[in-house]
């Protein structure tokens, strides 16, 4: 080009940051957050425990569902406390608590991740559609969201599972089918305000269609709060699954699962404290770690000087 266009002069010099996306900035902040990093380490440990559950079984020599009626129970038929053979004691059927906790981690994490993933995908897509397309789509979806959010979750979940029978798939589906509504509501709100922004108008002036604008222009602006919400959603899902399990609607026995173990321990809490304590601790630590990490993620994306 041989036109006489002035080159950018010194006053116009861009700041010397090279291609720093909001995500890499947030990631940097997260890495400096000690509490969040420790929680992440704990989460990794729990994941490892879940993956290596068969190792636990191999090392102790006790498969998770094996009932040791002689070795594991007292002559009165009560569980034995932590000892050399059963490091965390046994449960009411003489099974190794430690090994069952390790296997139980699988269920909690699996449901936590899968149900959350389903929830977020459905919620984001529907929230985008409702907020952006407006009109009848929005009216129907907004009403649907209202209905789902007004229904008493636990009651209906109990009812549903009692009809279909407990299973992993049902648990995941039930949780997913209710949780998407809160995600969708948040996304919809964000999209409604983003829709009026000038860069959306600019995209239209270029000839972009609805779908392209939704996914290429609007979605990246919505992703940040979605990520924060997702990390905070996982512990909620884990607790929900444990609660359903506790009420007898989790996986069919004898599959080891933290909520189920705590439920089984109810009758023995006077005699076998380890039976309730260790699964309870596992659940608590997992939830705590995810919550702390989620807080860290939230602060990394939206740092405010006053918040600790």
């Amino acid at each position: 080009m041989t036109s006489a266009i002035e080159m950018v002069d010194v006053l116009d010099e861009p700041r010397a940051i090279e291609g720093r996306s909001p995500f890499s900035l947030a990631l940097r902040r997260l890495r400096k957050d000690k509490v969040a990093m420790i929680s992440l380490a704990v989460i990794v440990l729990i994941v490892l425990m879940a993956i290596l559950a068969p190792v636990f079984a191999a090392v102790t020599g006790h498969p998770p569902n094996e009932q040791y009626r002689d070795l594991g129970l007292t002559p009165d038929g009560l569980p034995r406390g932590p000892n050399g053979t059963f490091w965390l004691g046994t449960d009411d059927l003489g099974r190794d608590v430690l090994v069952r906790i390790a296997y139980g981690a699988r269920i909690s994490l699996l449901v936590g991740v899968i149900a959350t993933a389903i929830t977020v995908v459905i919620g984001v897509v529907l929230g985008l559609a409702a907020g952006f397309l407006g009109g009848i789509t929005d009216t129907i979806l907004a009403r649907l969201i209202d209905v789902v959010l007004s229904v008493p979750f636990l009651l209906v979940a109990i009812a549903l599972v009692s009809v279909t029978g407990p299973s992993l798939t049902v648990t995941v589906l039930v949780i997913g089918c209710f949780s998407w509504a809160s995600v969708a509501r948040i996304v919809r709100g964000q999209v409604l305000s983003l829709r009026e922004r000038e860069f959306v108008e600019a995209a239209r002036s270029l000839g972009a269609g609805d779908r392209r604008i939704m996914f290429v222009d609007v979605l990246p602006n919505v992703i940040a709060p979605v990520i924060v919400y997702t990390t905070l959603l996982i512990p909620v899902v884990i607790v929900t699954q444990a609660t359903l399990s506790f009420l007898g609607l989790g996986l069919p026995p004898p599959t080891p699962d933290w909520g189920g173990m705590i439920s089984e321990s109810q009758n023995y809490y006077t005699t076998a404290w380890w039976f309730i304590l260790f699964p309870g601790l596992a659940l608590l630590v997992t939830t705590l770690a995810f919550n702390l990490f989620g807080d860290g993620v939230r602060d990394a994306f939206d740092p405010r000087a006053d918040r600790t």
Partner: protein
Amino acid sequence: MAMFLIRRIGHGILVLWLISVAVFALFFVAPSNVAQTLAGRQGTPETIALIKHRLGLDLPVWQQYLHFLGNAVKGNLGYDYYHQVPVTHIIGQALPITVSLALGAAVLWLALGVFNGVISATHPRSLADRGLTLFALFFYSFPSFLLGLLLLYFLYFRLTLSGFGWFPAGGYAPLAGGIGPWFQHLLLPWVALALLLAATYTRLTRGSMLDVLGEDYIRTARSKGIRESRVVVVHGLRSALTPVVTQFGIDLGQLIGGVVVTETVFSLPGLGQTAVTAINQQDLPVIIGIVLFASAAVVVANILVDIGYAVLDPRVRLH
């Protein structure tokens, strides 16, 4: 304003109607052997058919639904399958228990949460703040059933063993039998329920207060020489409490259906437990009645919260 109210109520009714359709549809997909159970082991096919007819189960689904809807609008939610007790009566019996539980816990968690939140916000990054934040985070992560069980273990079992048997193992003592026993039986459930929610409210209040205290008008108030406590309570709290009150309304509404776990752990025959029993027995009218009632509670709570918003912020009314 009237238009706004009418629209919101209309919206609420629509939501409730949709829920009734969904719940009804759901249960009719499920195979039901209520008639079988009622007839007993000796039940002949004729008896079963008779029972089915008596309960109206042999009519097509949509007819049963319309029948139900017609009655519901008149205030009659049907009769339970097993003892022919009016569902409204069943709800009426279970409701005071759930309400006692919910309201008592609500007072506790609101007071605790707001108080802690304010302390945290007015002394940011201090030892108290960090301690309370940690406390809040800890209980926020605590599954409610676990907390209930642990409370039972430590405050009922251990305490009773040591001779101080003040807390009962569970069950409910109606108010009519005296405040003492009523209180005694509800204290542990209240604490179990409240600690968890107090944690949420501590975080919420803290965040909201921090935002408000950073505003210019607070600085103006301070520079006018007003006492700090007055600044915080009168000027700061008033605006900071708005999101808290909103959340409170929503939570209270959802609580009616959400206390299932606590009622189960502490053997309180409230709405939650009644519903679970009904579900196990496939007692459809009771299930639908309670689910609708709980949903109505949520819808009403949401409407009240929206009204509150409209009162506080006139711009909402124009929408």
